[in-house]
């Protein structure tokens, strides 16, 4: 059914590359650093450098350009909206054109382009992380990252486990929703005609069976976990322990050197 098609979530693309093999903690760290750095180095040459880093990483990790462009699609509306706001509300003396009280200035356009590009690069960078890191690795990495907070009573393991389970069930639930929609459409349900309230009501026959299924699944999963003696994070060992080796050191060093170059370029401009 076309109703829920085209949603890419949990968009891991498996491949055998240097970047795929990196420790998830290393990739998380680099992503967080790059988010901060992209925000503080906002000149156009600096952003060109960031873009080239993204393209290079995508090439090295065999991520098709199509997938990368598609990943930023849902956020594009937001980017265009903020850009429009920037164009009209930044103010400035060099007016290009005006619609009523709205004045588009040169300064506003430059700010809009800068903000738009920035947001776009941010989305692409995080997309690279989810493309090259499987959901389970990602939650392992997050658990390790939140590890220090357990001292203050933060349930790092539990949060990571919840994330893993949620991510794991997204595709399954999509499939089930699709099946229920198909079944109700076969019985004459109509999701496309009528006003807003009528259309919202039309989804009741989809939502109720879906909730029933979700609760059933949760029950089964909980029993299965208890049957395997799951008792939370205490004393739990890993099948694939996270290892920080020379590859991670190299990647992090390369990233730091690259960012230093970008920052100094940004300063000079």
């Amino acid at each position: 059914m076309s109703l829920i098609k085209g949603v890419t979530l949990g968009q891991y693309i498996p491949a055998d590359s240097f970047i795929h093999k990196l420790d998830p903690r290393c990739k998380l760290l680099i992503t967080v650093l790059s988010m901060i750095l992209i925000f503080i180095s906002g000149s156009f040459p600096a952003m060109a450098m960031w873009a080239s880093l993204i393209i290079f990483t995508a090439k090295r990790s065999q991520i098709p350009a199509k997938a990368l462009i598609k990943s930023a699609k849902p956020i594009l509306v937001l980017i265009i909206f903020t850009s429009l706001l920037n164009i009209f509300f930044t103010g400035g003396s060099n007016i290009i054109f005006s619609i009523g009280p709205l004045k588009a200035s040169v300064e506003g356009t430059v700010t809009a382009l800068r903000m738009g590009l920035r947001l776009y690069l941010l989305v692409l960078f995080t997309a690279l992380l989810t493309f090259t890191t499987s959901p389970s690795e990602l939650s392992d990495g997050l658990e390790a990252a939140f590890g220090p907070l357990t001292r203050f009573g933060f349930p790092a393991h539990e949060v990571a486990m919840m994330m893993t389970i949620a991510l794991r069930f997204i595709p399954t639930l999509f499939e089930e929703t699709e099946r229920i929609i198909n079944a109700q459409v076969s019985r004459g349900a109509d999701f496309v005609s009528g006003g807003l309230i009528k259309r919202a009501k039309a989804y009741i026959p989809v939502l109720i069976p879906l909730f029933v299924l979700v609760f059933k699944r949760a029950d089964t999963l909980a029993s299965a976990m208890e049957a395997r003696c799951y008792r939370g994070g205490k004393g739990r060992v890993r099948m694939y322990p996270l290892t920080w080796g020379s590859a991670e050191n190299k990647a992090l060093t390369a990233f730091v050197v690259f960012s230093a170059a970008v920052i100094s370029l940004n300063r000079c401009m």
Partner: protein
Amino acid sequence: MSLTVKKLSFTYNPGLPTEAKALQNVSFNAEKGEILSIVGHTGSGKSTLAMHLNGLLVPQSGEVIVDGLKTDSEPNNLKKIRQCVGLVFQYPEQQIFAETVRDEISFGPYNWGKRGEALEERVFEAMDLIGLDNSFASANPFLLSGGEKRRVAIASVLASEPGYLVLDEPTAGLDFTGVCELTLLLRSMSEKGICVIHITHDLELALNISDRILIISEGTVTAYGTPSEISEMLSNINVKGLILPDILSLSYELKKTGSIENLTSDPYRLAEQIKAAKMRCR
């Protein structure tokens, strides 16, 4: 008046790395009043085919024609087609949403414009057909047993009075009694002039209840004919993922040794032939 599938092909995610050919050049036709079984292993394309029959999926090439109407994207056609082709999905009890059995069963006919007494009539007719007595009408469907829930779900499709009834693995998860009751129901449907299209992986069941059988493997039709023709064909070809019923294998062996003349998957007919052969020997 029949349901015709002509050279139907369908590929999931065309052009992407996850591309998967689900159906290739599938053709068959189903008449009112017969039981047609579509038999295939998991992933053979059976369910994709089922979704084409009432226009949930539109053919990428080839066509599906129901009572002269093509399942193209014309919304008016689709509405008519969905009304006359009832589709019972696998585990149909998972689609139940209403508070009472009556509301659940009236969902279909209500959507097709039935109101008041006509609606009520449809509901009780469908319940009667499926063997649920009137006391169930005000029951909460979520509190029923598994078998009863499935019957409610099938009744909710029957209530729209479809001319064609497509069932995707209707016996999955049912116990022996449940399977027997269901096959009896399918028989009585076809005797009422409804065309029953029964999708299954159980060849033995298909051989015993169908008028015609279509065997599908990896998206293509490998055999199509009456149960006896199919029994004949399967002695020569090997269909991937299809397990022959023991009784059919036995009758192949007996025919090879010349003990019986006709292949069969019916234990009683096999026994009769063996008895006759024994008499000849004396």
